[in-house]
């Protein structure tokens, strides 16, 4: 930064860094630091998402098993309720989709129909219309987190489409 200005060389004006120089240096350093610090939340978010996705997949596998293990009714096609999560399965043929069943799961995988302080995931089970009484029952499962967030604004989600035989 020592510009060769012989006239000023002997005066004390160039004894140290000028205020402008320091300000510019600080500006560059802070710019770099901000960029580096911005990487930390990115890493944390991606690891949190990975953890949440693992948990959500475990929930989906448990719920799908519950739906599949529920026996067919006699006569077939009547409404039923699953045993473990108490999910109401509509009667076939469903012409309209009933309201989605909503559940809230904590980190240990316990399901409740209401939000608790330790709820982490929100599961919605929507049954789609199927064509006739002997057709497959169609379900759309969606796990979102955090539990309190509206699914449209959730931090992340895992979805699954399930078709299972209830005959």
């Amino acid at each position: 930064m020592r510009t060769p200005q012989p006239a000023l060389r002997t005066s004390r004006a160039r004894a140290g860094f000028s205020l402008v120089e320091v300000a510019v240096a600080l500006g560059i350093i802070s710019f770099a630091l901000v960029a580096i610090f911005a990487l930390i939340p990115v890493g944390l978010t991606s690891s949190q998402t990975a953890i949440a996705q693992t948990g959500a997949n475990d929930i989906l596998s448990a719920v799908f098993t519950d739906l599949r293990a529920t026996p067919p009714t006699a006569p077939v096609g009547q409404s039923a309720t699953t045993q473990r999560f108490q999910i109401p399965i509509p009667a076939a043929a469903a012409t309209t989709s009933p309201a989605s069943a909503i559940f809230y799961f904590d980190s240990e995988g316990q399901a409740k129909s209401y939000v608790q302080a330790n709820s982490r995931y929100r599961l919605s089970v929507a049954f789609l219309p199927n064509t006739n009484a002997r057709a497959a029952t169609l379900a759309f499962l969606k796990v979102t987190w955090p539990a309190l967030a509206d699914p449209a604004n959730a931090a992340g989600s895992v979805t699954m489409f399930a078709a299972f035989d209830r005959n």
Partner: protein
Amino acid sequence: MRSRFRVPASVLKFQRSTAFTIIEVLVATTVLSLMIVLIAQLFSSATSVITLGNKRMETDVEARALLDRMAIDFGRMIQRADVDYFVKSPTDAMTGDNDQIAFYAEVPGYYPSSGSQSPVSLVAFRMNASKLCLERLGKGLLWSGGATASNTAMVFLPLTIKGEWPAATNQNSDSNYEVFSSQIFRFEYGYVVKGQTLPDGTMLPSIYSTTPWDTRAGVAHTSIRGFQDVSAIVVSIAMIDSKSRVLVSDTSLSALAASMADFDPSQYPNPGDLEKQWQSQIDSSRLPKSVTSGICIYRRTFSLTR
């Protein structure tokens, strides 16, 4: 800086402005030390968050590898009424300890050096009680060609896994065992038994069970018959990351594992109840926080397709 030493003697009276006063130095050092303290706090909290995240990620990776392997093995399990299974059942209750499972599956294994390799292997998972690790047996089996080649080919009932390959059903050593994970310290599983509707319209709901067949009135099966009544196998595991593992002795970890309940639907009927009991045992154990923060519980439901 060099120019300072070339200042003529005539201007030495202005020396005050060429160096810092003690006040300036004091103020600068105070500000610097304050900043260092703040940044150190920032770094220490960031480090603890990152350490916790790393622990969690390490167990996640290990658990995913293990559970994915189980998904493949269970998915390719040979489900026939005429073959034997060594699984949790009234004859092998596996209570008060880690579980063990052995079955035939269409997966590759370690084959004998000679003979025609069949696509079937004997697969077993067990916790090695002395080494505190999960071991997987993948014993490649040969085509028997009708011969009674002992211990090398798949056998049908009444020959049992226990009779032919005792190491798959106990703690004996076998060269085909490989350590799958040294971070897992508790391994439990149970079954989701299918619901059934009887001809008279009575519904038998699906249940969690420690018996792999339906013993309820109306159906009352008495044998596994190729997992005919089982809808899914539910596996629960507890894992500890390697950094926390070195802080805890085998004895303490075994004691913690022993305090974590068995898969018992009569006491823990709903999904997550068992995991809650495990977590409360971990939280109430005397292990330091740095150890318990590295323990994670995983549960996976493996649907059996038929």
